[in-house]
């Protein structure tokens, strides 16, 4: 009976998919037995294929369409082009701020939560990886939270346990702190560290400007990379290391360009030259190494970038042919010319042609951008000032009202200048990222015929980045101090990094307690406690991996006199690296998609958590789309999120050379 029902369900599918697949196979002249096999294959995988089309491909394409519209619940759909992406990615709109905050919160969960989860899971697995009675019972208990944490019941229990006043966790912590004076100190130290760190993070997520620190980061990355390169002779491994960092730097820049540059209105064409320049650096490097397929990939990518940039410029609402023609033509020449040049000639000629074209273009950009006067107080003065340890931060006392530039400066509010004007007056940190890319690119591209030039580039870069890191860091500190003090003096309750300044100013008193569910400083640690509690799934995977490590390895190491730690580092960790890798990927994706815990913590009695300070990217998407009815904007958010998750995953695969699959 059941069999015939199943047949009745499956038969129509056979006609739909199986027959059509067989027809296509017949048309392409496949043998009859093969035709039948194909028909069967498609018939049985039919449910998934149909589901894939209806629930994945169709919706994905439709959501791409929706992201370019102003769709709202109950309103007619209207095409608005890139406007959704613009509001979300640039400017100071509440949406942009919300997305930025949600993304940073998600990164907090990924960067702090995932390592803790992995350490906990590995620790539990190592504890359970032995033959003792009752061990299975313990394994079951350790895994149990995974089953329960997916639903609201236990999350609510945690929610209740973490109540600040009368909650179980705080009562236990208090008892622990009161039992011994050292514990009391540790308790207060924990409060101090968590509040300072989260206070700083909250400032970041609110979009408080970090000033010159934005230059310190790329400069420090350049410095650290060059530090690993400068000593000893040159080798292939050094080259590949430099190439990896270079790839990351280029990726960061191109993403920022694509995200911020392409969606600006009208499109900021300087981003286009910049992207093309970086792509060309990459084309030259790969051409020098004879990696033809990679060269093709970058050529295609860069051409798409230029064409998209130009098309989007023409389409953007602010574009006029008279006003933007020069910029538009420059973009064509800067981006297109070397790219087209790079398509011709044999491999060696191609390299030099492209390099030549690039240099010409760079000279033009420099000429246009660095017109006389730039070095004195202009944008590029940073490149001279920081390496000579001078500050670019002006304080009101330093200003001379008789000078024209300073008069302008004094006209505006000083705080306002620090907040809005800083990044406008000084050039974008992206130029420093670009500088790192150019120097690393040069080091990688110079082959063994020019060891002196390479060495010079390394030492020069090292000196420059060292001084620049120190200079911009010092200036960053000054900026931080000045802005906070000005804001504090002005009596504003939400001045620059206010929470950090208050939290780090004084050591907590005895009566302080963690405000898990009330304070924005504690909600993220609370969420991480809950995720660590349910890290049993990773534990099972580690347990399986640990069981796969051959015991002879440990015995051999023991004979050689390796101690416990040495055995762990040089046998266990390499042998279980695939499991670590798997857990990291799953953990990062899960962190970006955290939903249930946040839903429970936000929609709950007695709590007054600010959603902004805890929501993940996935929750932000949910709230904007389904609670506030912004379908079009939600579709745009979902695509931004999809790109970020895919990039994170692909990057983790790309940099997974520490994973040892030869078990």
């Amino acid at each position: 009976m059941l069999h015939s029902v199943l047949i009745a369900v499956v038969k129509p599918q056979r006609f739909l998919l199986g027959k059509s697949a067989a027809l296509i196979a017949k048309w392409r002249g496949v043998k009859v037995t093969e035709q039948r096999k194909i028909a069967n294959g498609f018939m049985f995988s039919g449910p998934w294929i149909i589901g894939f089309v209806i629930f994945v491909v169709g919706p994905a394409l439709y959501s791409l369409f929706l992201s370019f519209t102003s769709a709202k619940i109950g309103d007619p759909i209207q095409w608005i082009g890139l406007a959704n992406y613009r509001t979300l990615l640039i400017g100071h709109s509440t949406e942009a701020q919300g997305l930025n905050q949600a993304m940073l919160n998600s990164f907090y969960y990924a960067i702090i939560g995932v390592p803790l989860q992995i350490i906990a899971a590995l620790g539990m697995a190592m504890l359970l990886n032995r033959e003792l009675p009752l061990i299975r019972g313990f394994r079951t208990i350790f895994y149990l939270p995974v089953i329960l944490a997916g639903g609201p019941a236990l999350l609510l229990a945690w929610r209740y346990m973490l109540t600040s006043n009368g909650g179980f966790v705080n009562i236990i912590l208090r008892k622990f702190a009161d039992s011994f004076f050292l514990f009391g100190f540790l308790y207060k130290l924990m409060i101090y560290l968590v509040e300072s760190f989260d206070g700083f993070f909250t400032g970041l997520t609110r979009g408080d400007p970090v000033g010159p620190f934005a230059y310190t980061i790329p400069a420090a990355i350049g410095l650290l990379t060059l530090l690993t390169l400068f000593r000893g002779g040159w080798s292939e491994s050094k080259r590949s290391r430099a190439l990896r960092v270079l790839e990351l730097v280029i990726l960061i820049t191109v993403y920022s360009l694509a995200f911020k540059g392409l969606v600006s209105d009208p499109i900021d064409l300087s981003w286009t030259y910049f992207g093309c320049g970086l792509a060309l650096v990459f084309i030259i490097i790969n051409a020098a190494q004879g990696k033809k397929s990679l060269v093709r990939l970058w050529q295609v990518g860069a051409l798409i970038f230029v064409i998209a940039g130009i098309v989007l410029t023409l389409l953007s609402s602010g574009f006029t042919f008279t006003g933007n023609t020069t910029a538009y033509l420059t973009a064509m020449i800067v981006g297109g010319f070397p790219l087209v040049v790079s398509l011709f000639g044999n491999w060696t000629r191609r390299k030099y042609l492209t390099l030549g074209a690039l240099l010409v273009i760079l000279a033009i950009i420099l000429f246009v951008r660095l017109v006389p006067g730039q070095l004195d107080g202009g944008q590029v003065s940073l490149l001279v000032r920081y390496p000579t340890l001078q500050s670019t931060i002006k304080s009101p006392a330093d200003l001379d009202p008789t000078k024209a530039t300073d008069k302008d400066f004094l006209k505006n509010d000083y705080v306002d200048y620090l907040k809005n004007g800083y990044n406008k007056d000084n050039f974008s940190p992206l130029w420093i990222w670009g500088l790192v890319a150019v120097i690393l690119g040069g080091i990688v591209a110079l082959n063994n015929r020019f060891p002196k030039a390479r060495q010079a580039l390394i030492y020069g870069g090292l000196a420059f980045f060292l001084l620049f890191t120190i200079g911009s860091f010092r200036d960053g500190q000054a900026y931080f101090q000045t802005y906070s003090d000005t804001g504090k003096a002005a009596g504003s309750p939400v001045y620059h990094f206010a929470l950090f300044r208050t939290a780090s100013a004084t050591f907590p008193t005895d009566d302080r307690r963690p405000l898990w569910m009330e304070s924005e400083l504690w909600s993220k640690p609370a969420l991480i406690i809950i995720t660590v509690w349910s890290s049993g799934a990773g534990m099972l995977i580690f347990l399986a991996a640990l069981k796969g490590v051959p015991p002879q390895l440990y015995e051999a190491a023991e004979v050689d006199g390796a101690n416990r730690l040495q055995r762990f580092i040089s046998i266990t960790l390499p042998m279980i690296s695939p499991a670590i890798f798997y857990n990291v990927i799953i953990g990062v994706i899960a962190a970006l998609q955290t939903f249930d815990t946040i839903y429970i913590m936000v929609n709950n009695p007695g709590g007054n958590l600010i959603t902004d300070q805890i929501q993940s990217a996935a929750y932000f998407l949910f709230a904007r789309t389904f609670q506030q009815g912004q379908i079009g904007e939600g579709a745009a958010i979902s695509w931004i999120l999809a790109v970020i998750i895919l990039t994170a995953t692909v990057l983790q695969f790309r940099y997974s050379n520490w994973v040892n699959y030869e078990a």
Partner: protein
Amino acid sequence: MTTATTTLSEAQTKPSLRIRSAMGGLKTTLIYAVMGLLSLFFLFPLVWMIGTSLKTITEITPPQFNLLPVVPQFQNYAKLLSQEAFYQAYTNSIFIATIVLLGTVFSISLVAYAFSRLEWKGRGIVFALMMGTLLLPSQATLVPQYALFFNLGWLQTFNPITLPGFFGGGAALIFLLRQFMLTLPKELDEAAVMDGATPLEIWWYIIMPLSRPAIATVTVFLFVGQWNNLLLPSIYLQRSQLFPMPLFIVFKNNSNVTPVPWQDIMAASVLFVIPLLVVFILTQRYFVQSIAMTGSKG
């Protein structure tokens, strides 16, 4: 518990090297102590939940603090069981879970069969495509799926939650089932083909019965996922008579009443968790093995 197990393990060790075994005994005791403490951490929220559900409101008002109720009270449960909305939500949850389980298990076993036992041109491509969807975040399709079901007039129905299951469920579960089906000997199919069996018959009479352990695992995964599911119901179901249990629990006490009636919330939570616990404890052995299997291949 700790002392009892220690003596057990000491009895097992050979008394030949006394110092070594004494050291081993100490180490074992230490390991058990650590595991016991950890178990306390993992089980505590559950204990706390059950304990609270048996307390009265005065017992949970702040200065009061007891780990377990002085006198267990069942009035919170009685109150809950007298509500019609509770039964409604429980029935809804069971209904959704049943439909999803039936549909998904049926469809993914067909698909896993196609990917493991049948050989056909295009299998590699379709399989790669399926594994590719694992990388695609579910958020990318959430919004247009909503639009799709909105246009079909299916908001405030169970269809958006139950129907996708009939079309392949999740790639991860198909992969799990496929991995298992690959381990079955190839000769089974060959013998059946000699006897003139069609692929459909082979699937139903040979492969399905042999794949029972893997299907059980998949079913448990699906059940746990569906029973706990909060996101989809909160998108598609807004009428309170359609609420499944997760939404019932969340919204039941969503008012800003102080003091928060935690004892009621926890009582509902306990009743919600019971099926999960029962299913998990009954099947945990298969469950644990299958996760380990997929992970080590990942």
